[in-house]
């Protein structure tokens, strides 16, 4: 009996036995042949027959060539009158409404501000991302015509590992500092080097837990016309002893190098780091946080050797020349402190404003 007869008979007795295999064969053939590739005469590799083109560049008009003259890019003391663009970068492990409200209060025109956020690959990051999305959609929604829009907003999900726990005590444990700061540096770099655009004149690093700054923050800080300039980060708290609201220094990463710091550094192995604020490693470096004078002129500048990232104004050319946040010990320094060292190696001076306060959230 031939196969044909057999199939005919099977069709009569039980059509499913014929239809199902044929359908299966068709599906199988589809999978085997649909992923087919093509080869090219001048290459030993296989290529996709129909390559996706999500950006549709191939169909753009032929002279779609953009041209930017970076010689015209300036970063001057009168940023506002020169309409210089500022990129505000924030690594965000958790979203604080006060941070966002403060950001929206800044008086610099929003069409000159670009925002960049990076969230870690954790469940904390997920939550921050949801809140951030809601907040951004309120401002950038085209239907909300009365709200001024930011020139550009980029939100990134970090690809590299991040420490799960961001609890205050875990965050500051001395041993975990190197790893945490290294991952932080990687996050900062990923954010910086994917958002820095051809029109960016200034980069303002503003931490997600900075909840209070002067409204003229950008004008004030660019006005000093410094390559790298750090504000003094303090914290508001309730003083249990005095029974009143008070303030205390918070960011100890803004410092001036000391002989003791250099001496300790010279004795360390290449891959060891020095971090400020731990009694285990007393460097006796003058810390900008301690130089605050409530009566003093807020425009007073002091030269620094290490900076923190809580509120840091950087001329974009410093980053473009290559100054980044080392995720490895660079002169025994890491992250923002390593950045200050690298900026100095590139010939830039680093300054701080001891009397110009911004406030960190109190958790």
């Amino acid at each position: 009996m031939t196969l044909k007869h057999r199939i005919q008979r099977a069709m009569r007795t039980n059509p499913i036995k014929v239809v199902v295999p044929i359908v299966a064969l068709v599906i199988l053939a589809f999978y085997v042949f649909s992923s087919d590739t093509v080869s090219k005469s001048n290459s030993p590799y296989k290529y996709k027959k129909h390559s996706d083109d999500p950006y549709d560049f191939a169909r753009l008009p032929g002279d779609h060539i953009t041209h930017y003259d970076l010689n015209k890019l300036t970063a001057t003391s009168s940023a506002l009158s020169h309409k210089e663009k500022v990129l505000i970068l924030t690594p965000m492990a958790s979203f604080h409404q006060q941070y966002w409200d403060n950001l929206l209060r800044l008086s610099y025109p929003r069409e000159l501000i670009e925002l960049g956020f990076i969230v870690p690959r954790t469940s904390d990051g997920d939550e921050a991302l949801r809140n951030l999305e809601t907040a951004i959609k309120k401002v950038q929604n085209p239907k909300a015509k009365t709200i001024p829009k930011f020139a550009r907003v980029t939100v990134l999900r970090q690809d590299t590992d991040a420490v799960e726990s961001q609890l205050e005590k875990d965050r500051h444990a001395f041993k975990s500092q190197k790893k945490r700061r290294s991952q932080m540096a990687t996050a900062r770099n990923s954010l910086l080097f994917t958002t820095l655009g051809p029109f960016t004149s200034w980069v303002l690093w503003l931490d997600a837990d900075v909840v209070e700054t002067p409204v003229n923050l950008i004008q004030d800080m660019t006005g000093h016309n410094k390559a790298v300039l750090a504000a003094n980060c303090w914290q508001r708290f309730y003083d249990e002893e005095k029974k009143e609201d008070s303030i205390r220094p918070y960011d100890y990463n803004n410092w001036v190098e000391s002989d003791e710091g250099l001496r300790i550094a010279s004795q360390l192995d290449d891959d060891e780091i020095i971090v400020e604020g731990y009694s285990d490693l007393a460097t006796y470096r003058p810390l900008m946080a301690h130089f605050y004078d409530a009566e003093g002129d807020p425009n007073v500048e002091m030269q620094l050797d290490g900076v923190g990232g809580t509120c840091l104004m950087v001329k974009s050319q410093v980053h473009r020349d290559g100054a980044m946040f080392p995720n490895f010990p660079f002169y025994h320094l890491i992250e923002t402190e390593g950045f200050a060292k690298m900026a100095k190696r590139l010939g830039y001076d680093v300054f701080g404003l001891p009397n110009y306060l911004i406030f960190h959230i109190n958790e």
Partner: protein
Amino acid sequence: MDEKFGPPINSRNSPLTHRIFGLLPQIFTIIAVIATICYITLSDVHSDLYSPDFDASNAVNTHFYDLEGYDGSSEGWLDNERIIFCVPLRDAAAHLPMFFGHVRNMTYPHHLIDLAFLVSDSKDDTMGLLVTMLREMQNDPDPSMHFGQIEIFEKDFGQAIGQGFTDRHGFSAQGPRRKLMAKARNWLQSVALKPYHSWVYWRDVDVETCPPCILEDLMHHNKDVIVPNVWRPLPDWLGGQQPYDLNSWRESDGGLQLANTLDEDAVIVEGYAEYATWRPHLAYLRDPYGDPETEMELDGIGGVSILAKGRVFRIGAHFPAFSFEKHAETEGFGKMCRRMGLSVFGLPHYVIWHIYEPSTDDLKHMEWMAREEVRMQKQEEVMKIYRKVWDTGFQSVKDTWEDEKVRILKNSDPFKLSRHVIVDWSDQ
């Protein structure tokens, strides 16, 4: 069961073929189910992580990127991985036609390649020619020739040194020159790299010969940073060929010792007698018959043709415009990548060819060779006239002289004469 129709197809007693035929529906159903499941899981990878949804209708000028989606893989061209192709240019008009010839021939899907150029300190018409050639390429009737996004940046850095071969390659010029070039590369990288770039390719314009599938050739090694070997052809009088790029090397004890003796801002440059490092160079390890797939781990690399993952630049690796571990620019980049724990490799037996630019000494020698050739020609002409004048002005008397010589010198040749000559050898 009616005998007329033969045994039932599911019968246990049926021949093997019948039994397999009977099982076919089940087999195919299972295969189809598995294939469907595979297709669904592979084609649509669901992440547990939350992804916001921004578009022009709910948030203007707002974009979200999950950077993990843009990690490079070994067969990026099959996964739609985008490359940013970075080209620093300076007075490069003469090389552009050759460069565009290579670019057009590239086999990596063109629409996945974004081009970024930095034109700096150019006195020739680099800019004009670049735009013309790009327009021509992007208006090609064949859409598969068209590249992705194209950006040209201009930025002048000034320069203390000329662009002649010897100016550029003299020893004292190296440190400052390399730092300036590093700055140029960093400026280009800082504006060219977008979140969606999985790969970054750095290429000099003055490469003469290079396989069209170089991107795939380098990419399939799946390294963070990888470079080919770079040689250059030479005229016959200089030996035919020569290693060109000596910046790709592995660190040696000699190199580390030398580094320790130098001050903080010094930059070690390879290929100069002043800094003998005894490092193994990628260029010298070439075997023309060696396996082009052979990999070699490197510490310093050259910049003629670098393929790196986008992630390398995202996490902060760059071309140090200062002395980083006593190195700058591409060599410093190699060192920094190693410091960051990234893989840096070279392919000793996979070679691309840089153009030959004669050095000042070579130029002098070539001038001398040219002068010599002219001189020889002139001399030949002078000799012709000289010979003619000689022939007409003088008569050869050589044969006659041969005849007469014996007779004339008859009395002067002591051996032909039978004269007995007595010499008095006594002292007195």
